[in-house]
């Protein structure tokens, strides 16, 4: 299950500038650790679920990927707290609040990655003054990593079709490494070839012909972003001070 993958939806949250979402992720997840007010934590936690609903994300898929945490984390904390604090209702209560904090971290990160495409993420990096060449390198990495996996898998299949068996054993490190040579060599050859072709085509498109580069200027800090930032600040103030 790939819960970390970008899921396209036409929603307010998806359209927001990644910088606002990044700020939300950092501020909200640090906020829950700065307060020990149970109602404040719960309010922030619920707000996070609300953001997820607003983003129209596939609930079933998210639930599938986090259900283990949702069940196991409170349980294990309850056991731990019962030991630490003694057999009291307070222990159960505190354990639940503490689990809530961690679940919020997980949920917020999932919402962030599911609503922010890699390319918008990279553009926002350029906007916060990360050098373009560096962002470009990251783009290439994101683009080619799945391809490398696919290719490696093909090589493994091609060698298995010739009855090759892989050794996975810590006790026989030399044999393990040896058994991977028939995969490593073709994969490297394929990668080098790909890298070479890639470099030729980057040259052919004039990369590095001059210093000034125009990159896609898609991100705008507009009314929606201001609205979202104000709403976030207002909600946090309310949650932390009033509850």
């Amino acid at each position, binding site marked *: 299950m790939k819960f970390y993958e970008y899921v396209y939806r036409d929603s307010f949250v998806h359209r927001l500038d990644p910088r606002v979402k990044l700020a939300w992720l950092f501020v909200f997840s640090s906020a829950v650790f700065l307060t020990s007010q149970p109602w404040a934590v719960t309010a922030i936690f619920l707000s996070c679920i609300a953001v997820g609903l607003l983003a129209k994300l596939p609930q079933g898929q998210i639930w599938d990927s986090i259900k283990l945490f949702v069940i196991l984390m409170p349980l294990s904390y309850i056991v731990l707290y019962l030991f630490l604090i003694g057999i009291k209702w307070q222990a159960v209560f505190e354990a639940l609040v503490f689990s809530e904090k961690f679940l919020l971290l997980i949920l917020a990160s999932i919402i962030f990655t599911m609503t922010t495409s890699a390319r918008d993420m990279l553009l926002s990096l350029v906007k916060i003054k990360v050098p373009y060449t560096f962002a470009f390198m990251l783009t290439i990495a994101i683009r080619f990593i799945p391809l490398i996996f696919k290719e490696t898998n093909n090589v493994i299949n091609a060698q298995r079709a010739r009855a090759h068996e892989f050794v996975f054993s810590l006790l026989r490190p030399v044999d393990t490494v040896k058994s991977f040579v028939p995969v490593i060599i073709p994969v490297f050859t394929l990668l080098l070839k790909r890298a070479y072709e890639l470099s030729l085509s980057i040259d052919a498109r004039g990369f590095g012909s001059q210093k000034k580069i*125009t990159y896609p200027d898609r991100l705008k800090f507009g009314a929606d972003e201001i609205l979202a930032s104000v709403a976030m600040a207002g909600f946090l103030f309310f949650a932390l001070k009033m509850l």
Partner: protein
Amino acid sequence: MKKIEIIGFNFSYSGGKPVLRDINLEIGRGFFGLIGPSGCGKSTLCLALNGLIPHEIAGVKTGKVIVCGKDTDKYHTRQMARHVGMVFQNPESQLFSLCAEDEIAFGPGNFGVSWREIKKRVAQAIKKLKMEHLKNKSPEQMSSGEQQKTAIAAALAMHPADAGSDMPILEKEKLVIAAAMALDPDILVLDEPSANLDPRSAEEIFAILKKISQEKIIFLVSHNIGQIFRYADTVAVMDRGAIVMCGAPADILNSEKLLDYLDLPAISELSNELRLKPMALVAEDIAPKIKFSKEVHFKSKIVYRKNPVVKVDDIDFEYVKGAPILQDISLEISRGEFLAIVGNNGSGKSTLALNMIGILKPQRGNIFINGKNTKKEKISDLVRSIGYAFQNPDLQIFEDTLRQEVAFGLKNLHLPPDEITKKTTDALNYVGLQEYADSDPFSLSLGQKRRLTIASILAMGPKIIILDEPTTGIDDRIVKSLMKLIVRLNREGHTVINMITHNMDLTARYAERVVVLSGGRIISDGPVRKIFAQADILEKANLMRPEINRLGHILGNSEVLTTDDVLSLL
């Protein structure tokens, strides 16, 4: 002004033999098509047009290449990119952005063009290639056709486009082209843009390029001889590094000399047999000139035997829960059959093959190879009965010599050394690579590498051979010699299963039985003539009739498959 001027150009890669010999060319406008056998130096010549030779590729050169008045010796590829947009052979490795739009914007961005102007160019390139639906798609999710389109668009957008020009292009392929177009170059160089495309998409790409050629020079290398002759304004033939013929397409096509260098498409060969001039390129060229005088129902020669060597018993397969790749597949294959499994990319052909050789196991149903269930057998036992030669030989080659490469599988079977030696030698002899036995496999041509992969499978002794797209990327003459080998295997008792995506000519010519896969299901299974007679099945699987069959179809007999069939009906 001559836009491309090549004067006495010679080139050899460092330490290698001459690849290009005394090339002299002048191109002023229009659509220039370059054809020639595999390995004749066509791709190398492309690399010289934007300065990759001599600036990025090491080698020895003499002579001059002047493009748009600029000597490529003095201007680096990065500068030449202002004039020359290049679309390379492999769309997959020339797209490096996360969506089509960014890909196309990359080229002009490198020249510091304003974002407003870039947006305009991107929009134009996308319109020209008819790829609006691809704008936000990532190259990973595209078909090769879509990628190619993007690359072309990216090359186009590199130079400012004219307003109001309305031109159409396919997905990966489209993307590659779009990306090249975004730089709006004066010259668009394309190396085999249709190699990974189905015939319909290839036709579409050529039509788009033809329109683009009204305002830019198109310099195109291709194995699709039929299309080159129909679309190009000038055709040049290259052989062993030299340009041997150059002129108007009709003159070259009708010259006998052409046959010294290349094999023509089946439909052209037919018009040769019938002594019809000018040479035909599509069914319509011949149809009005002949008439079928007999009505014949061709017999199908499939014999279904009682004990199938492969029995796929109602299987389902999925990699990820809820996303089935194969559904309700049942298939029985008898000893000695020559079978083609056809279907588009993503129809499930490779997954079915991996299930047959036991690398993947079906979630539901069973597969029996010679009566043995793949779920219960070890792969090392199955490979003695059924072998799978992958499409890309580079996936498996890793040893220092051909001999070791072939011996690899045998060593995995723990055979005694003298038996390994004997079987290796026999297999290499069988595929005709004995003289290279001790050379480095990486130095082989693609056609030879395919033979090597077949040898390394054959050596293990299977009687059932699955070949995945054995003929992509090689020219017709090498295809024929490779198919001769495969037919011989079949005659000597091997069961041959050919996986084919686009090459229906090949299917029509060699297969006895065809299984059509579409969306993970078998939608038709029967004698080859019956399959091509079913228009609805072809439509559903997005397959195109080969030209000879189309000719038969026009003249009222859809069972016609080969030149001999046509001759027998006259």
